């Protein structure tokens, strides 16, 4: 009985406190803004709907209003949410916008989903059937040089360049082409290279406005026997596309998700 009263009291206090704490005009605008972004992402993931110019202008109008408020009263600037359109949208194509919003939210939550986790250590694969020998390679740097046929390393480097420049369709294609190592059908020993390239390709598809393709590549990556824990960006992508939130994701990452 005593505990019940204490819990009720705490609940009422919390509700009361949060009501007064969020009563500012900036907080109300921020809520509307979050809601509008949620709607764009949700419609994109679940209905593959590309936002209309109407929706985008409304989001930008919210950002304009919040910026005007913050400009007039700097104390409100501290409560202003991160402006996704201003800071992360390229607006090359409206089809890219939902993906860019998802990526931006993940970045704000502390996960850079476009940075793979291949790392600086070299990867190994076995070459030759009669005289098998171990080959090593490191992750190549991004380059604008178009890769030749079968140049899996070149595909990866070019894909990274395309991704950084907002050319998501090409990035998705070249990340996928980088998965298959020409000299070795079995692939790398740890399968991390293949996994991360597939995930990068899936993210590129998501950015390019095709969540279905992203889902397919994600499923493909899950079929690999990777000798490493899945990267947080892979888990974040899974949570976005399937609604399955892995417990390893931190609270801010969970809060940035638009779940069903």
């Amino acid at each position, binding site marked *: 009985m005593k505990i019940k009263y*204490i819990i009720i009291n705490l609940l009422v206090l919390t509700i009361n406190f949060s009501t007064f704490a969020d009563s500012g005009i900036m907080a109300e605008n921020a809520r509307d803004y979050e809601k509008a972004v949620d709607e764009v992402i949700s419609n994109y993931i679940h209905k593959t709907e590309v936002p209309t110019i109407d929706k985008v202008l409304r989001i930008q109008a919210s950002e304009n209003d919040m910026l*005007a408020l913050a400009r007039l009263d700097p104390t409100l600037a501290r409560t202003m949410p991160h402006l996704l359109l201003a800071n992360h949208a390229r607006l090359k194509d409206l089809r890219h916008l939902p993906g860019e919003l998802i990526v931006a939210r993940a970045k704000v939550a502390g996960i850079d989903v476009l940075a793979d986790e291949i790392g600086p250590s070299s990867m190994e694969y076995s070459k030759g059937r009669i005289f098998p020998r171990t080959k090593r390679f490191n992750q190549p740097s991004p380059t604008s040089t178009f890769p030749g046929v079968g140049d899996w390393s070149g595909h990866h480097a070019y894909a990274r360049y395309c991704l950084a420049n907002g050319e998501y369709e090409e990035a998705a294609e070249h990340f996928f082409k980088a998965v298959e190592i020409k000299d070795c059908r079995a692939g790398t020993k740890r399968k991390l290279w293949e996994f991360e390239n597939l995930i990068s390709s899936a993210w590129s598809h998501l950015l390019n406005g095709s969540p279905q393709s992203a889902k397919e590549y994600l499923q493909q990556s899950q079929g690999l026997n990777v000798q490493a824990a899945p990267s947080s960006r892979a888990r974040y992508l899974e949570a976005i596309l399937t609604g399955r939130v892995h417990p390893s994701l931190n609270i801010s990452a969970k809060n940035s998700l638009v779940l069903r």
Partner: protein
Amino acid sequence: MNTNTLIQKTSCLLLALLLTISSEGKQASMSQGKHKIIVQRAANIKENLAEVKQATEAATQKVESLSEQEDQEFLRSENPDLSQKERLNHLAVSLNHRADVYLEVKNLAVSNGDRLARVENDLADIDRALAKSPYLANDPKTLDAVNQVRTNLARSIEVDAKLSMLAGKASMNGQLSQETARIYRLSQGQLASAIKATSSKDGKSRGEAFRKQVEELRHSVRSRRTRMAMIAKVTDRSLREIEVFAATQGTRVIFDEIDRSLDGIAPDDDPLGLKLLRPEANDRYWNWSQNEDQYRTDSPRVIQARAFTPINERINPNEL
């Protein structure tokens, strides 16, 4: 049961307290409070400066009048047709006027210094209020927030340029709703106006400009206060000098009078007053004494029979 009632009562009390605090917080905003402080301090500054002006004007008039009187008295003190006593009297009056001038200026400098100190304190209060004002603060946190907003604005303006172009095309093709077009145009106008209202020529915030102004005022008040303190010190020094002069001059006059009064007894040609005092006249007294001694030795002393009177004859024995 009693414990439950107690908990219920405590909960209600806590809620009521929280609601009261929250509603009180809504009634008077921080900025309104600070605005009041600034207005009040500004009124104090105005009042103090008006008093400084008024007091200075009054003191100037008085000093001018005293100086005029002093000059007149001093001229009289130099008039050779007057007796020395009269001239000294005029000099004393002139000195009094000079001392009054110094006292007047010293009092003015001290009181003005106090008033300017109050002005400086008021300016410091305004500065503190500005520092905490949500609109004009320039503490590191607020400046950081302002810079963040500036960065966001720069990026947002780029996005706005692209979106405006897209919106224009969409509008031409009839893909844009009237309501969205209106909302967007309004938000653009609001943001542009907000930027205009908070921009200054040198690119700094209004808060910084205001605080710079207050700081400059404080410097100028401080320099005036220092000047007042210096005037007070110079005047004090002059006053002490005139006091010393008056004291030494007075002593000289007294000595002159003493010398003059001595003229009757010991004039300059007889500095020890031998003529009047005739120390040689003492000889007869010496002679008289010697004569007396001789007389005593010539006639021997006769002891009378009743030289000693018994006590009982001198008193009443019944009164013992």
